[in-house]
């Protein structure tokens, strides 16, 4: 119960941000950070709990984004219905890629490679297919009504993405305590042993991948509504695949709050770099990459792990003083 209370507290505190500041810069920063937290939480389900490192989560993000956008622009479908279909489409893509690669027993580096390749195939297709607007991209018409999932100010967007993040936190918390979560961790720790004790490894991985893809696709749908523009490089580009894995790894892989913490840390670092150096292209990503290497080298359990070690250290010190 305590863990659910923590989630409620964190979400409630975050929900207060628009009351504290009306600054568009701050809200925009928070919206993007929460978006990355959501996408990262998707990656975390599969990579953090299931141990299957995907380098191609752009495939799900982009599918969610494009489906939402294309349904609205070309078929006049309501944006909220588009969101639901976008999430379903992302989950479907995840299930198909998962079924194909897990069926042929791809693990570790091979799995990372094949997910990367699928994302690239989708990117190339999206960059030439007429339905995505090819090189020109897809522009969602401005229609500032809540029914159209567009808002005058940033605060409603912020609360919506926060709600998405809250749902993903609850979902992952539930998984962590569930039988399915235990199976997933067993697969991560030792796939052969998991199979030996009777876990249907294929189904567990497939379920994790489908859920992971659905969460990430929800991020893609939100992106489309928030920025109202998509092209192949944005939707299916490698940047989102990298951010999706960066957030949980830096925050604390395979933990409920890891992606949220990591997204805030990463985005703050990015902004800090921009403050110091001005708007130089590439430099924020240099920092991300460097942080990724440093975290893997020195804090394999992420920022959350660092806090934990610091707390233990403090406690030990208190004990020796007492």
């Amino acid at each position, binding site marked *: 119960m305590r863990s659910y209370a923590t989630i409620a507290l964190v979400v409630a505190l975050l929900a207060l941000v628009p009351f504290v500041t009306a600054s568009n810069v701050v809200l925009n920063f928070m919206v993007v950070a929460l978006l990355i937290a959501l996408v990262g939480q998707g990656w975390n389900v599969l990579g953090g709990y299931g*141990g299957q*490192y995907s*380098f191609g989560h752009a495939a799900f993000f982009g599918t969610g984004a494009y489906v939402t956008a294309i349904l609205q622009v070309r078929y006049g479908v309501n944006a909220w219905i588009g969101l639901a279909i976008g999430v379903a489409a992302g989950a479907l893509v995840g299930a198909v890629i998962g079924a*194909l*690669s897990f*069926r*042929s*027993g*791809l693990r*570790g*580096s*091979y799995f*990372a*490679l*094949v997910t*990367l*390749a*699928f994302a*690239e*195939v989708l990117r*190339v*297709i999206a*960059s*030439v297919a007429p339905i995505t607007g090819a090189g020109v991209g897809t522009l969602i018409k401005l229609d500032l009504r809540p029914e159209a999932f567009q808002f005058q100010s940033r605060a409603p967007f912020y609360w919506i993405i926060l709600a998405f993040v809250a749902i993903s936190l609850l979902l992952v918390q539930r998984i962590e305590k569930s039988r399915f979560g235990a199976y997933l961790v067993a697969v991560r720790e030792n796939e052969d042993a998991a199979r030996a004790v009777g876990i249907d490894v294929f189904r567990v991985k497939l379920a994790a991948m489908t859920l992971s893809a659905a969460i990430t696709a929800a991020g893609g749908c939100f992106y489309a509504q928030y920025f109202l523009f998509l092209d192949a490089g944005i939707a299916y580009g490698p940047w989102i695949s*990298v951010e999706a*894995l960066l957030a949980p*790894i830096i925050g604390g892989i395979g933990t409920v709050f890891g992606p949220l913490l990591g997204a805030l840390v990463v985005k703050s670092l990015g902004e800090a770099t921009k403050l110091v150096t001005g708007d*130089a*292209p*590439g*430099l924020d*990503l*240099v920092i*991300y*990459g*460097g*942080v*990724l*290497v440093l975290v*893997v*080298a020195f804090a*394999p359990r992420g920022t959350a792990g660092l806090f934990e070690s610091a707390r233990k250290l403090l406690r030990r010190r208190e004990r020796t003083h007492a």
Partner: protein
Amino acid sequence: MLSPIILIPAILNGLLTGAVYALVALGLTLIYGVLHIINFAHGALLTIAMFAALFCYTLFKLDPYLAAIGLTPLFFCLGYALQRFVIGPAAHGEDRNILLVTLGLSVVIENALLYAFRADTRTVNLPYGFDVVQVGPAFLSVPRVIGFCVVIAVALALWLIMRFTDTGKAIRAVAKEKLGAELSGINVAHIYAVTFGLGTACLAIAACLLLPTYYVNPHAGNAFVLIAFTIVVLGGMGSVAGALVGGLIIGVIESLSGLYLGESLGQIGIFVLFILVLLFRPSGLFGARA
């Protein structure tokens, strides 16, 4: 069906392109075969090498083929140092960590180059850049024919090193049985780094061969990465001969699918092949069944 007048040049050109792909893949497969890691920084390292060759030419008027003589040992040292002092220690011997560390490195390198040189695409104008030689019905670009010959020579040299030198023997020993090699007195960390260095040195040569006919920008190396992965998987992870043959096959496939499907969709041919091979024959055409 197209007439042989068009088909034969396309195939020959594909073979020439494929040779350079093969060289990039050779480095990758060597590293995979010994360290059992997929080096995601491979493309970024190729980009660095291309920039190095470019600046050798623009600053010192050094011909790319001459620059290769200096750059190859330099990149060997770079690769050695990267593995010995960055990737090895940072990864704590865990495969998943190595994936992330090399991915992180590639992000750092690529964007540092983007920051330093912007996204501009640069090319060099060499006097022989557009020379052609006639072979049957085909006109082949001279720099690419040279590239093809150099690649064959490098592959041969690599094979000789692996076969007949003590270092080569040690590399093969580590690849086969790491613990056993360590017990018989081989310094595994050193051999890992040497292998990584050799793989990186291949990139320096590839970059110098590419420069006369290709462009350089901070993302230039990426174009080769997935192709190189495809070749490595096709040829069997860790197989030198497989990489060579796989590279030539991919070059021809790319050239032909470009001919039939057009430039941008032609890329898909390679990715689709890659996915199919991964799904149905992950051990490759030459690799042993895992």
